């Protein structure tokens, strides 16, 4: 048992459901939802099925490798099915069985949890899926993205890979997981967590981050004007990550926080508006 085999099993399962298996996106994002394979693809009317692994960075969750559960970077397995299949809950339950979970011996719950991401103007309705009290998946019927009402409605299934693997291996410490037969999570990630925690909380250059945020924001606006929506969106993702770093450096006041999120959202909403306007006329 390893994270690698979990990923292979999920790939096999969702490929079997007709999903395109996308490669991991190459920018820092806070969640799998934020990559173009979800963001742009849920906006239009065409059917879309995708599955991919996405590292998700949340600088504020860093714990210097000391906490057995919290890390500033974790891995998500992201699935989008559009339109949401009528039997998607059954499909999801089958995916858990395909991983070898004997659900009869456990407590599986769909517990109300309405997800939202103010930064990309997105929200949805659904549940956190709990297995014996452990949140293993976020299950969301997307209602809006980039401020646009979505029709047809996509369903988003986001597995927390480390959580799920800890459950499967009945382990209490994330660093005790194996990535493959020979490589442990500790080998791969411990030093990274330690150094990045120090970077996120103490070392990152605040003025440089602010400059970066402002520069990316301006550049995004400029690209929107030139109709280059995909580059503009990448620049918004950069803004978002720089904002997260500033936040973990403790450099953002509560008022400023709201303002900066609103700035990114305004850009993202404009990108979504232009993207869908283009689709309608095409």
């Amino acid at each position, binding site marked *: 048992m390893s994270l690698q085999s979990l990923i292979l099993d999920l790939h096999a399962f969702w490929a079997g459901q007709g999903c395109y298996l996308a490669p991991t996106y190459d920018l820092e994002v806070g969640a799998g939802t934020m990559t173009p394979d979800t963001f742009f693809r849920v906006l239009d009317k065409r059917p879309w099925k995708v599955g991919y692994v996405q590292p998700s960075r949340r600088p504020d969750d860093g714990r210097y490798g000391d*906490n*057995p*559960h*919290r890390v500033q970077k974790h891995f998500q397995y992201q699935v989008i099915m559009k*339109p*949401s*299949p*009528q039997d998607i*809950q059954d499909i999801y*339950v089958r995916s858990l069985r395909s991983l070898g979970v004997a*659900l*009869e*011996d*456990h*407590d*599986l*719950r*769909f*517990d*109300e949890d*309405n997800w939202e991401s103010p930064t990309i103007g997105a929200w*949805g*309705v659904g*549940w956190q899926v709990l*297995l*014996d*009290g*452990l*949140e293993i998946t976020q299950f969301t*019927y997307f*209602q809006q993205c980039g401020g646009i009402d979505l*029709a*047809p*409605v996509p*369903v988003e299934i986001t597995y927390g890979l480390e959580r799920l693997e800890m*459950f499967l291996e*009945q382990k*209490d410490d994330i660093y005790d997981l194996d990535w493959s037969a020979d490589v442990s999570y500790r080998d791969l990630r411990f030093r990274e967590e330690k150094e990045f925690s120090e970077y996120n909380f103490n070392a990152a250059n605040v003025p440089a981050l602010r400059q970066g945020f402002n520069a990316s924001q301006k550049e995004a606006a400029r690209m929107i004007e030139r109709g280059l929506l995909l580059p503009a969106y990448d620049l918004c993702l950069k803004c978002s990550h720089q904002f997260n770093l500033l936040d973990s450096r403790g450099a953002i*006041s*509560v*008022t*400023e926080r*709201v303002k900066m999120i609103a700035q990114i959202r305004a850009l993202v909403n404009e990108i979504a508006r232009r993207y869908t306007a283009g689709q309608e006329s095409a």
Partner: protein
Amino acid sequence: MEFLLELLTEELPAAHIRAAREQLEAGFRRELEAARLAVDGLRTLATPRRLVVAADIASGQADREQVVTGPPLAVAKAADGSLTPAAKGFARAQGVEEDRLEVVRTSRGEYIGFRRTAKGASAEELLRDIVPRVLGSLAFPKMMRWADRSFRFSRPVHGLLCVLGGRIVPTSFEGFEAGDTTVGHRIISPVAVTAATFADYRAGLEARGVMVDDAERKAVILSRIESSLAPLGAELLPDPALLDDLTLNVESPLVVLGGFPEAYLSLPLEVLSTAMREGQKLFSVVRDGKQLPYFVGVADAAGDPKGLIRAGHERVLRARLEDARFFWDQDRKVPLARRAAGLKDVVFQENLGSYDDKVQRLKKLCAYVCDKLEWPKVRKDAVEAAALCKADLLTDMVKEFSGLQGRMGGLYARHEGYPAAVCQAVYEHYQPQSLEDPSPASAAGAVLSLADKLDSIVGVMGVGILPSGSSDPFGLRRNAQGVCKIILDRKLRFSFVRLVDKVLSTYGERLSADRAAAKKACLEFFEGRVRYLLEKRGFRYDLIGAALGPGIDRIHDALLRVEALDGLKSSPQFEPFILMAKRVNNILRGLPSSKVNPDLFAEKEERELHAIFSIVRTNAQAMLARGDYARAQSIIFKLQPALNAFFDKVLVMSEDKKIRQNRLGLLQSIQKMLSVIADYSQVVVEGERPARP
């Protein structure tokens, strides 16, 4: 005939289930009544995936006699009484024998017509339309769309079971055709269950892992919790809201008792129980009010023979407690007073400034309230608590568990060695959060809670945000109820109107609304809340109206007044006195006020009334000053005989203008006295039509 409906859905939130059940019950009652279908034993049941309605419904409407009118009599009958072609044509068109035609009298005149018996429609026919109408009208706190449907509901719908008298009702809802099958538990037994009767339905689901009756589930959960805690000599930390939610979260309740390492018992009970409840929905286990290293969870499973469910919950809880301990340790490194400086950057409300601005106002308001209540000993503690009370909004613990706001501040203050009264005031200043939640137990806590809530209400209303219908984003109603509850519980007597003035002036120029208008809106809002609270306490609505007549400047006095009225309402003097008071009101309606001059009294009865009134007034006022409305009320009853004699023997509307005005003046001074005790015109006595149902 037995009616059974089940809407099968994906997992509904507990709050949505509660909303849906109310609407289903009301909707079916309304529709069945409108359709003239008798119904008995209508009830709803629910699981997270099922909304169920069961009832006994008449097989159909009763047959009804119907009158069909044709042409006017003048047109239908000739002078000789024979039927005209118009009448014959009507009979032919309606397919009735001519000899069944008769004269029909209506409000518009006489017509020719006939009677027939209209066959009542069958229940099945009627339910066909009723079912989709009621289901389609359900509204939820948050609605969603799914797949490529534009229809909105709480969560996606999967099926409709609808049977009447053992037969499928031929109906459908949003494309889901009604049938007589449903499906068992998602994990335990996800196979089809066919049911033509409620008994089959219940038993069929039971066999497939679903206990469909939520009342039964709740009872089972409670009894299993009791039997698992009995050996420990322990009990649950009571949490009825959590119990209700869990009952609606599971189809197959399994009670799980688990434990956690004793090391975490160093965390406060508040933190432990919140960490357990939030997210994991576990109950705290206590003995003599102290946390034990155990928890109780309710799983949705048939059993846990391998102990995997228990072990899983224990593992997750350990991680959460570890986080809580991290927050507890980190937060205590920064003193509250230093943390409070950061409140400058936390917005209270866009137009009302920061939490630091609020804190500065609260310090002034607490001082003011203590001065008015003549509580000099409380003043210092309340003001000190005001300065600290919002600092915990910036702690990691409160950021993680917002429900701990206030309580965390109190706990951190205690850790820093602040006076006990200050810590307690901070701890309890959000109380009461509901009518069931107790008011702050300490005087300083009561003052701070009062100030905090009133500051929010006046400020938010002062920038033009008024609660309307279901929209009350700042929880103003709950806050106002909290204010009233504290005043009533502590029997606080002070001028509420002046306190509102004080809050308004403390805001200075911040408020956008006109100050007089804001004050008026605020007082009207509070009158509504006081009325609601008194209704909740079961007082008669007309007595409440009477008690509110003298205003709400002293909120606690409104309660005293209604209690006085309520206590006296069955006394033999009550109704005659009310009628007499109303008579006084009627006579004086619209008249300018006049003065009383005892020298102008002409009759013995008016002199006597005046003499008795002088004594009654002095005595009653003494009682009123003490807030003893019951005694004041009994005292003024003593006016009754003299007033009776006055009305019997004395002509109020005397020809002599001076004498008339003197008599009216006497009645006006009596009326003035009465109006301080109650607005008697609001009281409904027998034989009168109630002012409202």
